[in-house]
């Protein structure tokens, strides 16, 4: 059995780890990393009105099928957003293209841990539950390390003296983590790269703006879809933070949500005056985060795929909240160009800097 799956951020790292731990079962086919080719394949075969997550994942699946995958794992199930129907539609499109495969659905709506484990059991040809759980744990630990390093890099990027050093080290780290074969090795790699990141010379006078990244989880997590917006903001001297990390999502939806811990409770409560219900996807969270981040942050970058339903609702509501935090909405689709996005980011950062200068001046005056 050759198992393929679509990309979603760094999800390929735990997938590879699990496949290696359970060697002897299925062969895992990792799709080539997102490229112009995967996007244009997706655009060619997808209905035009669909969002970029659909088009990119379809591109991934086509590439995986070309590499000979006979089984595809995809997220599906009834949700509130269109996403729940994507696996089904993509299956039809791929069958129309003449590929022959078996589709395994990963239900996003409920019982995620159990579903994920039984999926792995099928794909691994009936490994024992204990081995599956251990492999899944190893995969998630790897993911956690990747995200920890990413958080560090977000802090370093705007402050480093030579732009691009941290990003370079982070990329090497991701590859090293991907290769790691045991918990001990992983620990050593983490310590090693944390050390290297700490040694990057920083600018002592740096005074970076603080910007929150919010929006639809796929485009936030997938650098190809958002055109490396975090790296570009870092280059402009902006520290970014975000709520959505894949390891965070996995931690809560596999384990903590089952025992009644909801990571978003605070955010939902903050959104209440403006939006009282879940509207699917991450729309509710976007509105809530705008309210929550008002005092601490200088601005927000809101990422959404073009035609995304929940985020369109969020955009309409966010425009008129009492919290007057500047928000730059970047719509991601296949027509987007990097130069245009950078110009918009530069203008946004200029505005934020001016706003901060003015408010600091008035604070100073008030003190005198």
């Amino acid at each position, binding site marked *: 059995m050759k198992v393929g799956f679509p990309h979603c951020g760094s999800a390929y790292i735990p997938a590879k780890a699990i496949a290696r731990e359970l060697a002897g079962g299925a062969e895992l086919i990792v799709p080539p990393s997102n490229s112009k080719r995967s996007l244009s394949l997706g655009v060619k075969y997808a*209905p*035009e*009105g*669909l969002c970029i997550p659909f088009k990119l994942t379809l591109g991934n699946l086509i590439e995986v099928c070309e590499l000979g995958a006979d089984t595809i794992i995809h997220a599906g199930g*009834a*949700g*509130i*957003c*269109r996403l*729940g*129907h994507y696996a*089904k*539609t993509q299956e*039809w499109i791929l069958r*129309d293209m003449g590929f022959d495969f078996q589709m395994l659905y990963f239900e996003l709506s409920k019982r995620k841990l159990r579903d994920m484990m039984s999926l792995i059991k099928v794909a691994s040809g009936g490994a024992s539950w204990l081995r599956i759980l251990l492999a899944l744990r190893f995969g998630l630990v790897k993911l956690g390390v990747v995200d920890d390093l990413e958080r560090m890099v977000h802090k370093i990027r705007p402050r480093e003296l030579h732009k691009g050093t941290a990003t370079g080290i982070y990329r090497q780290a991701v590859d090293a983590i991907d290769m790691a074969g045991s918990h001990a090795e992983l620990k050593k790699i983490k310590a090693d790269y944390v050390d290297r990141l700490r040694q990057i010379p920083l600018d002592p006078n740096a005074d970076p703006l603080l910007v929150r990244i919010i929006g639809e989880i796929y485009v936030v997590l997938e650098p190809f879809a958002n055109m490396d917006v975090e790296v570009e903001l870092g280059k402009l001297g902006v520290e970014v933070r975000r709520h959505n990390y894949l390891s965070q999502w996995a931690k809560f939806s596999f384990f903590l949500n089952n025992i009644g811990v909801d990571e978003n409770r605070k955010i939902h409560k903050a959104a209440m005056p*403006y*939006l*009282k*219900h*879940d*509207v*699917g*996807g991450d*729309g509710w969270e976007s509105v809530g985060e705008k309210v929550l981040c008002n005092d601490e942050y200088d601005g927000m970058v809101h990422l959404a795929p*073009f*035609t*995304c*339903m*929940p985020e*369109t*609702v969020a*955009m*309409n*509501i966010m*425009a*008129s*909240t009492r919290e007057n935090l500047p928000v730059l*909405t970047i*719509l991601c689709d296949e027509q987007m160009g990097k130069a245009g996005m950078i110009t918009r980011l530069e203008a946004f950062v200029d505005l934020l800097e001016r706003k901060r200068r003015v408010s600091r001046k008035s604070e100073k005056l008030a003190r005198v």
Partner: protein
Amino acid sequence: MRVGFPGALLYYQYYPLCKTFFELLGAEVVTTPPTNREMVTAGSSMMVAETCLPVKVFMGHTIYLSDKCDYMFVPAVRCVEKGVYNCSKFLGLPDMTRAVVPECPPILELDVDVEKGKGNLYRGIYKLGSRLTHNPFKVKRAAEEAWRVHHQYVDYMCEWGQTPLEVMDEMFGGNGHRQVDKVEKFLSGDSIALIGHPYLLYDAYVSNRVILRLRKMGIRVATPEMVREVDLHSGTVAVDGGAYWSYGRDLVGAGGYYLRSDVDGVIGVMAFCCGPDSLMMDTVRRYAVRLKKPFMQLIVDEHTADAGLITRLEAFVDMIHRNKRR
């Protein structure tokens, strides 16, 4: 007491229900004239550009009504069937209205969500009614009567093969309601099914009077409202294996029914940027290709112009004629 019910989105499905309910509770129900350019401009100027046309039209109607009523009734239809949800824009409609139309009078909300149980819905209806009366029996009676009228309305459309506007015209005697474009003669024996949401098909501005245009060409037009509930359901199952969206049957169910019936062609109407339809239209198209039935997809937005639409309709009708002659 005047309760406003904007004449867009849910109007075509629930106006008789809502009118009966509020009038029995002693309120006057105010609605809007047909969509016009001013409303669309007003609505779109208040909203983010990516929002779909029907929602912009809805906000246009709301703005128009704002100074003409004491309360605005904006229900949030979340889930009318277990495990089947609605588009985000319907879920967040009351909140979005409050954010987009600041001058809007207090909004009467009703959460329709059967997943939370019937009790929750009944409490919601009572809470809605209690804004107008303190007598719970009066609310109960009004709700029951409204429900009866709603069923009657749905049955009429189905039995008479008429559009919502025509049936509303009959039911309420045409006073204060929208004018109905009546074409008496059906010259040719051709029939075309129009599938899509009622707020697209029957809004003359949004759909560019597509029903009237087809009728003037001498074609009998069939719409989703003329199909029985059972057939809509079996149509949905045939095309998609089961319902995914609350109002998916307007497109999928009706598509599944009409593509297998003896109509000569099917035209699917959707709004640009519509989330559910962009997915479902492709599903229906795939089904039409499999059945080798003439199918055309029309996408409408603010910029839809007559000329382009007419050309496409004429071409489609010509194609059907030729298909029949062979």
